[in-house]
């Protein structure tokens, strides 16, 4: 007698079975890209960077690519990757928002954790609101400003925002908590402000699901505009629908799946399809017109106002001084373009701040004007520019900081005698110990890394207060050799206001900020 009768159905295997639904696949993708973001942030340091593409998520960002391309007339290197996202959006709608964006995933996590258990409340939180128009006006303002050379997209671009927030707050806190850093954990200037903005966005998400994505995100708005042409959409079949509105319970995009699904808002998360008991919603290829809304819900007046705002940013912002005389306090990273070009590219993503081994790169407040908020400047009190390091240009996604070779940075080989200068050091003879107080020192000369040194000292014999003879060495700068790295200022024992300080004059990136005539 056979052990099993082949005519009978096989008994279910005792192993656990996980049904593969599209929402679960989506969650897996979200988890992957969030983990990728965290991993790449973790390895963006000197010792771990290796060959990892640390800025790939920024390079995928079409909003950053479009803004910098409009402002500069060129597309920098890896930003070409953003075309992938554009193509994906033209095929699938705002799938980037629902499946890839790390800030979106974080918002989604918060929304999931804070979702009211009672269905009516959850449904109310996900109704479409007019405030969701705001992101399109933000997009238009930025888009109008970009061709005039003003690129402030980094303030609200989600990838730049989350990257900056992690650099300023999360990674330094993690380093302190785990003692993964030796003597000096990274410190980011005014990190609390950046962290507060981030915290606020997360906190709002507790009551308004995915608030940032719905109301503020200019990248989401851009993808929403492109979704007009998306080949696949979520569409509702009115014949099957019984108006139970259960699809709204988990629709964090507030895309009106219960009436006419809005392609420009939908994050393609498939929660509504999962939840619909009548199977009235489906992801359809080229659904017939009229079953959904595919253009953003903007008003003509709103478009005009935001265009105007974007256009006046140029004269308004530049009044606050980014051109003309160099600001002594604004010392830019090695490889930076001239200021106007720099500001036309910088996303304020703080990747350079993150990777800098000495933490000398810090996000500015308003030293570089309104436009310069959170762009990187050197703060010699925090660190100095390591002579043999070019990491900042290596991770910059838009080329605001160019990639330098060591040869070019140090002025070797075919760049002989023409190093990249960040500025020039000046002795404050009223504070330098040998000059002001007849006290021996010259730590600055000791640490000066150029060879021959840009700081040299002359031995002098002075008569002290009690008539004794004091022999000491008094240091001076050789401006031909000084590259403005700032290690002298950083190591000076007069720690509050150093006896030798670097200012931006003499920087090689600017034609108007030269110091000496005979320097190349």
């Amino acid at each position: 007698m056979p052990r099993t009768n082949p005519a009978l159905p096989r008994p279910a295997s005792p192993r656990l079975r996980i049904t593969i639904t599209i929402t679960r696949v989506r969650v897996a993708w979200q988890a992957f890209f969030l983990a990728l973001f965290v991993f790449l942030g973790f390895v963006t340091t000197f010792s771990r960077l290796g060959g990892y593409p640390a800025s790939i998520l920024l390079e995928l960002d079409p909003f950053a690519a479009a803004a910098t391309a409009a402002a500069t007339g060129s597309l920098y290197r890896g930003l070409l990757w953003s075309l992938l996202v554009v193509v994906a959006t033209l095929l699938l709608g705002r799938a980037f928002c629902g499946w890839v964006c790390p800030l979106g995933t974080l918002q989604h996590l918060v929304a999931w954790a804070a979702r009211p258990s009672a269905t009516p409340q959850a449904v109310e939180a996900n109704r479409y609101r007019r405030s969701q128009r705001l992101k399109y006006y933000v997009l238009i303002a930025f888009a109008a400003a970009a061709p005039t050379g003003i690129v402030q997209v980094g303030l609200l671009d989600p990838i730049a925002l989350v990257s900056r927030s992690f650099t300023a707050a999360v990674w330094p806190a993690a380093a302190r908590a785990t003692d993964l850093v030796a003597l000096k954990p990274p410190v980011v200037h005014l990190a609390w402000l950046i962290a507060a903005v981030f915290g606020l966005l997360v906190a709002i998400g507790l009551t308004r699901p995915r608030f940032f994505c719905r109301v503020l995100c200019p990248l989401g708005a851009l993808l929403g505009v492109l979704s007009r042409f998306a080949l696949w959409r979520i569409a509702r079949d009115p014949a099957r629908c019984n108006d139970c509105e259960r699809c709204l319970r988990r629709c964090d995009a507030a895309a009106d799946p219960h009436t006419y699904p809005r392609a420009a808002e939908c994050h393609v998360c498939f929660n509504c399809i999962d939840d619909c008991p009548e199977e009235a919603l489906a992801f359809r290829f080229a659904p017939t017109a009229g079953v959904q809304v595919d253009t953003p819900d903007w008003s003509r007046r709103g478009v005009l106002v935001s265009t105007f705002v974007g256009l006046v940013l140029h004269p308004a912002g530049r009044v606050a001084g980014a051109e003309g005389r160099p600001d002594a306090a604004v010392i830019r990273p090695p490889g930076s373009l001239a200021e106007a070009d720099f500001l036309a590219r910088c996303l304020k993503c703080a990747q350079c701040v993150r990777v800098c081994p000495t933490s000398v790169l810090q996000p500015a407040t308003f030293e570089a004007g309104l436009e310069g908020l959170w762009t990187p400047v050197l703060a010699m009190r925090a660190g100095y520019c390591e002579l043999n390091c070019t990491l900042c240009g290596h991770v910059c996604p838009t080329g605001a900081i160019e990639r330098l070779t060591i040869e070019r940075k140090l002025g070797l080989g075919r760049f002989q005698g023409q190093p990249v200068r960040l500025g020039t050091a000046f002795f404050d003879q009223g504070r330098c110990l040998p000059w002001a107080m007849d006290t021996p020192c010259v730590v600055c000369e000791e640490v000066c890394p150029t060879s021959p040194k840009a700081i040299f000292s002359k031995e002098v014999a002075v008569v002290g207060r009690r008539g004794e003879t004091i022999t000491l060495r008094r240091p001076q700068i050789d401006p031909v050799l000084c590259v403005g790295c700032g290690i002298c200022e950083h190591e000076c024992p007069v720690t509050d206001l150093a006896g030798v300080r670097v200012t931006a004059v003499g920087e090689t990136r600017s034609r108007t900020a030269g110091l000496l005539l005979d320097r190349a």
Partner: protein
Amino acid sequence: MHSVSRRDLLASLARAGAGVVVGAGALLAPGTHAAALPDLAAVEATDLAVATRQALAMLGGMRRFVSRGATVFVKPNIGWARAPAQGANTHPAVVAAVVEACYEAGAKVVMVADHTLDDPERCYRRSGIQAAAEAAGARVEQVTAARFRRMDLEGRAIGEWEVYVDAVEADVLINVPVVKHHSLCRATVGMKNWLGLLGGRRADLHERIDEAVVDAAAFFRADLTVLDASRVMMRNGPQGGSLADAEVRNIVAASVDPVAADTFGVGLLGLAAGAVPYLRGAQDRGLGTTNLAALRVQRRRL
């Protein structure tokens, strides 16, 4: 057959007899073995590991300093983010050879660390010392704030100061400096190398640097100094940078007298001991002698 004359026979016997007397005297002279060890041994060889081992052997071998089960702290100069060819740090081959010799002599653990000036991770990496020392089995760690303890150096310039605990608590302390030009001190060799075991605001020490260096040398009494003079930085020290600053000499020297070791080092820079204030100060305080002529110095070229 030729006959041996009586005079020839007497001459041969006399020569043989003299040989026996001299040989016996050499064998029987008391304390011959210990007295033959030099105070400073210097070896020149392109293979720095071989040069280091030879110098140690000439001093009596590492077993003279390291006993079985001892904890050893090896203090190289890892102060700057420079590559070995630039001569700003101790050559990694010398450090590795010292570490290996310690383990062969029976050390339980050999620690290697330095409080650097440039970024610590970059210094440990670019100098090649982290990789070489770890390959030789050493415990190479970054200094952390927690491992510094306030101690009284009882010096003239340095009173209470943060000191690296691991170095003080080790059984054996071996100084492995590199020879370099230094504007303020004239030269930086072994004694200045001890400043790498201090925390706090070291920049302040430059106000009385010569006294501070002697204070540090008096506090950290090295059991052994192994001097790396493979690439001697002749100018623009202590940072250097250009390969033109570093003269290739391929010399490794070892000594129990730290002042003698430094004197030998500054000699390679073309300086007399009298021209280096901290050396005079060290001799005055009885830490050693700068008079190499009065010492047993053995040099060898391989």
